């Protein structure tokens, strides 16, 4: 049994990201003017500085950009090894998520593997984890 995951402190900016999974949505901040994404979320677009930004549900698929197989149990009871990965999201250019690749053996994770989001619920937080698409 894994220990509880660290809990992000919610605010108006990050709430759509961390709780969107309740509706099955992976929300990333999108600019209504220039169409670029801003992540981590800001109250403005980091590309054109427009304040016309809002959370947008993205496809939730992507590819393993890089990863590390972690063997060190950083918290008591943490089941290792586990895969920590950087996923590049489809249709969200320039945005990466640090996440875990789950539901497969650690040795089955490779560069450029296609993955999709799967949410892990813990309290009000829905952690966006990823699993391989077969």
């Amino acid at each position, binding site marked *: 049994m894994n220990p509880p995951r660290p809990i*992000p402190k919610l605010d108006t900016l990050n709430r759509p990201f961390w709780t969107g999974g309740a509706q099955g949505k992976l929300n990333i901040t999108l600019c209504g003017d220039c169409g670029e994404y801003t992540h981590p979320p800001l109250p403005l677009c980091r590309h054109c500085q427009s304040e016309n930004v809002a959370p947008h549900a993205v496809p939730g698929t992507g590819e393993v950009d890089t990863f590390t197989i972690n*063997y060190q149990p950083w918290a008591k009871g943490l089941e290792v090894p586990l895969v920590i*990965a950087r996923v590049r999201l489809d249709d969200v250019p320039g945005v990466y998520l640090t996440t875990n690749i789950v539901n497969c053996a650690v040795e089955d994770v490779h560069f450029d593997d296609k993955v999709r989001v799967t949410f892990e619920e813990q309290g009000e937080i829905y952690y966006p984890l990823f699993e391989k698409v077969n």
Partner: protein
Amino acid sequence: MASKEAYITGVGQSEVGVRLERHPLLLTMDAANQAIEAAGLTKDQIDGVFTYPGKSAGYLGFSPVGSEDLMEAMGIRAGWYAGSGEIPAQLAAIGAAAMAVKQGLCRHAICFRTVYEAAAMARPEEYAPLRRDKVEGWSQWTNPFWAFSAGCWIGQYANRHMHQYGMTREQLAQVALNAHRNAQLNPNARAISKKELTMDEYMESRMITTPFCLWDCDRYSDCSTAIIVSAGDALDEVSCPPVRIAAMSGSVERWSWDQVDWVAAYDAGPDLWKDTDYTVKDVDTVQFYDGFAFLPITWLEGLGFCGKGEGGQFIEGGTRIGLNGDLPMNTFGGQLGAGRLHGFGFAHEAALQLQGRAGERQINDAKVAVATSGGGPLAAALLLAQD
């Protein structure tokens, strides 16, 4: 009065240990007094104080002493002082001091970095540990996925380097092997490294987070390192060989641990050469931040000692970066061999080498050195010259 140049003059370092009892302010005084003495100054001549990242109230072991603490303890009347983490990286505190002495705000500024993480872990009632159960700021994007350590972040960049360019674990191992070999000649490293490391020991050790095994990660230690930066027009007051800060850089494309394609050494590296006639060919020794073993590879490539992707080949076999090689690297043992001094050890060693004070590990005729600190979005580089 403004001064055209800034110089590193005296340097000092306290005992380096693991779970030291000595109070961190006293460690800081040890380092500071040693640096002042090495410069041939008295404490009354110190009129500037700079540190990184300033006192860290929420996680005291990381930085238990601030600039104001040293000013109070030593009775320093400072023309300028600063302790900040919002600066390119650890060695940027020395850069800030250089700017201050050039501006004429102070003549002799003491820069220090005090770490107390090993002692703090042993005495959590006195030094509260870093809270990891609730996260905010940038750590909310990594910690919830058990990516607690910078090793988990930097390890991903290292793995991709291996995937893209073919760097091998045997090549990467040379960073740690070189560190422990050199550490045997550094009296200050005795508590950290007991003996040389063999390739077999390296390959058989336990993995922390791929590709980093135990030997690829620096170790919490307790220590203070102090470096005095003096104005060019105040050199007649010092009695040690001054080391000119010939250039410095600290550029970063974007401050993020996971939204950028590469670590900031690739941004700050090229910028170091923008305003100097020196080139990589002039460099006699490099002291590269090695909190994790991959980082010196990024500095070798970022600064142009080799091409991007060629760092693994560059250090293959370890001869080139050894004490008798073409480019002696981390001659004091780096952080892997001499403890997590958090950046300042690299400037300390570069100055000692250029002053001819590096004892058994002294390299011949060292005139130009590069010292760097940082990993991920942190990057600061100093070009130091005995000219």
